[in-house]
């Protein structure tokens, strides 16, 4: 049975992508990383829609390349250069004393360059996973998954997302209108003659929007009983305190490990409880909520399984996932991790095809397009 085209729940994409990111963070094996990037890229290509954000993935690929390059160059220039295979030797330059006796250049070692490249690759692959989520998940739908307690902030962001493209039109319009006054304003005045009308326009729009929202029932908050408010406050403040203590514990080597992790876990639980209770005051429903059905379970599950298996594998046999540099050796492609990474391909078939906008030319807006 083929799935009807629809948008997959954005959170499912995020869980999958973050799962893949966690998986890749456990390895520096370049072959494995390359396979994972290919898997993620393939899923993006076959399951992204035609919205503007769907084009984000290539930017992340470029960013990843930059990361790898920066790492390699830095390490070549600033490598500690103890012993190993010398690739070539750069001219050396000493730095003044305040620079902590750092020396630039010198012999460039294959091991160091490779280590930097592997590490960079891993980071680049992480970026690719994040880019995949950005390309696949509809950000506006994702906003609906915000906890109810953050409803107001979510609305502000929705408003921003709606208005931002209109602002671009507004700028184009005003810039064209400037010519009607001879475009005589230069420099600061020129900036001003564009910025001020656009800003004033946007600000008066905000007032009209507020009136419209008010009249349409926005913010019909139910009365919150005093007890509930107190409980929310206690949960939230206790949770934050827990988080701070937990973080401190994790940073301090002398603190017992359990204390740090425990405080962190309690903190998160309390905060989550606070958010849930705080959301009680919002009595709202959602029009055509995004369903969470089998495809969502499959996609999100894939990510979780990949992450878990890789984490387990890395603690079971770290050498499997980190190719040896001393001695320098061609990396293997371990079978189990490879299978796990390939499992990440599942969303390419398990997720439904996105709904594509029919190729209809939009009406209106043409006159502004100049």
């Amino acid at each position, binding site marked *: 049975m083929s799935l009807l085209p629809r948008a997959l729940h954005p959170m499912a994409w995020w869980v999958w992508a973050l799962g893949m990111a966690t998986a890749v963070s456990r390895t520096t094996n370049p072959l494995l990383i390359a396979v994972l990037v290919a898997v993620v890229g393939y899923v993006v290509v076959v399951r992204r829609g035609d919205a503007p954000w769907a084009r984000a993935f290539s930017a992340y690929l470029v960013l990843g390349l930059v990361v790898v390059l920066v790492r390699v160059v830095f390490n070549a220039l600033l490598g500690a250069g103890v012993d190993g295979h010398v690739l070539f030797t750069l001219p050396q330059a000493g730095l003044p004393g305040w620079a902590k006796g750092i020396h630039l250049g010198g012999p460039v070692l294959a091991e160091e360059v490779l280590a930097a490249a592997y590490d960079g690759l891993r980071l680049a692959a992480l970026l690719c996973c994040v880019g995949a989520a950005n390309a696949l998940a509809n950000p506006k739908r994702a906003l609906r998954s915000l906890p109810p307690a953050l409803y107001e902030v979510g609305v502000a962001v929705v408003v921003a997302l709606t208005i931002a493209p209109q602002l671009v039109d507004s700028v184009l319009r005003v810039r064209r209108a400037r010519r009607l006054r001879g475009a005589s304003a230069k420099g600061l005045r020129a900036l001003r003659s564009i910025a001020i009308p656009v800003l004033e326009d946007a600000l008066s*729009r905000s007032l009209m*929007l507020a009136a419209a929202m008010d009249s349409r029932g926005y913010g019909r908050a139910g009365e919150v009983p005093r007890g509930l408010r107190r409980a929310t406050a206690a949960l939230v403040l206790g949770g934050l305190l827990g988080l701070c203590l937990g973080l401190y514990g994790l940073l301090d080597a002398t603190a017992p490990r359990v204390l740090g992790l425990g405080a962190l876990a309690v903190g998160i639980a309390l905060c989550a409880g606070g958010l849930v209770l705080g959301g009680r005051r919002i009595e709202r429903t959602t029009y055509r909520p995004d369903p969470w059905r089998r495809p969502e379970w499959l996609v999100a599950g894939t990510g979780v399984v990949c992450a878990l298996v890789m984490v387990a594998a890395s603690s079971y046999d770290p050498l499997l996932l980190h190719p040896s540099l001393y001695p320098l050796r061609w990396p293997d492609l371990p079978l189990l991790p490879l299978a796990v990474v390939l499992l990440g391909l599942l969303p390419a078939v398990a997720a439904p095809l996105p709904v594509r906008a029919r190729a209809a030319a939009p009406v209106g807006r043409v006159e502004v397009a100049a």
Partner: protein
Amino acid sequence: MIRFAGVTVTYPDAAAPTLRDVDLHVPEGELCVVLGRTGAGKSTLLGAVNGLVPHFTGGTLAGHVTVDGRDTRTHPPRELADVVGVVGQDPLAGFVTDTLEEELAYGMEQLGLPPDLMRKRVEETLDLLGLADVRGRALADLSGGQQQRAAIGAVLTTHPRVLVLDEPTSALDPTAAEEVLAAITRLVHDLGVTVLVAEHRLERVLQYADRVVHLPGDGTVTSGPPALMMARGVLAPPVVQLGRLAGWDPLPLSVRDARRMAGPLRERLPVPPVVAAPSGAEALRAERLVVRYGDVVAVREVDLRLRGGQVCGLMGRNGAGKSSLLWALQGAGRRSSGTVDVGGRDPAAVGSAAARRLVGLVPQTAADLLYLETVAAELAQADLESHRPAGTADGLLARLLPGVDRGAHPRDLSEGQRLALVLAIQLAAAPGVLLLDEPTRGLDYAAKARLTTILRSLAAEGTAVAVSTHDVEFVASTCDRVVVMAEGEVVADGPTADVVLASPTFAPQVAKVLSPRPWLTVADVADALDLPRPA
């Protein structure tokens, strides 16, 4: 359904109350039209219905406003959202989401209605307002009429018993306005919704009204059945003015009523004198003008000549290419091919500073040109950029519209004042050709009459004027010549009477009443009968 009892509204900084001791009752299922000049308090009256005044705006409200039994003292706007639906002037500014379906659902989401009910109501509303075929579209991509209907739909989904509309048709072409008004009357007739609508263009709505509420401007409010209110001599559309002139009783409120009484008048009227359109020297000549944006051809090989001393009206549906044509003529907008010749020079080739001395353009959103903090600063800047002696623009503004506060912020002016300011700024360059894009939007009768006087006197001084507008009554009283555009092409071009009489969409009310006699305005009829012109 709506009851005002002894309502007085005073804003925080105001010296005098905006509404004074208002008693008003609008029964259920009535369509009630609110009349009044700009600044008479219409917005305050409308805002008070759902409590935006004073909960949202600040201020003092004495007395009681009750809607469906709920007092606005104790019910802020959001608590009245299921009873009163409010549609503002600019629909796009009031949209919270960016697609039609989500916008329709927004109000229901706030009220916490169950999802299946929401789904059902969205479908009903799409059908009711004829929006089903654009359901998935982005709101910004809808046409003006569709946006206005979407805004109405967005408040209808909560099934309010009262609908408040602030100038719902001011930005629409006649056909789109008819669609919106048809939708509104359908709500009144089929669903029993009580509608309160403020509208400057009475000729569009009066025939549908059950009640007229008039704000004379001193804070008081009078109301009554339309015929009675019209007889009392408040603001009136041309058909009523004609009725008053001819002494018809009862006063006609629609063209149909008037036509049935107009037989004797038609006989009595002489054949109107054929007034040759003033034909000054040719001021602008455009040939084979094309404007295209990608695949969309906005202006298709248009030839146009404008003569000094003539006011030329440019009409046509929204999106027919009027704005693109005006912008291309001025030289600031895109021109894909073709030539424009103004006294031997091409405004697009001489640079924008010189272009505005050849052709002045007042854009649709006139405020786009204003960026300084006082009227005086804008006027001084206009003198500078036009290389005129200081005080030129100031003098022009004083002539166009006396009494504009020079220290005011340009954004705080009324529509009419802001238009006069921009006009003064553009006229400071003394262009031989003046183009205006939709200047009548949001103007009340008095401001429109003022604009007519201004444009006529500019033409009398030899300027060639072209003005795009949807307002047929304005065209009838202002223009010598009318050009009609459709799909980027000129489909009609000739003396006003010839063009507007040929089309039911563009014919003014007087012409419809007196057809086949080619009379266009009440003033002309009054002159022919040697009666005083209506104020």
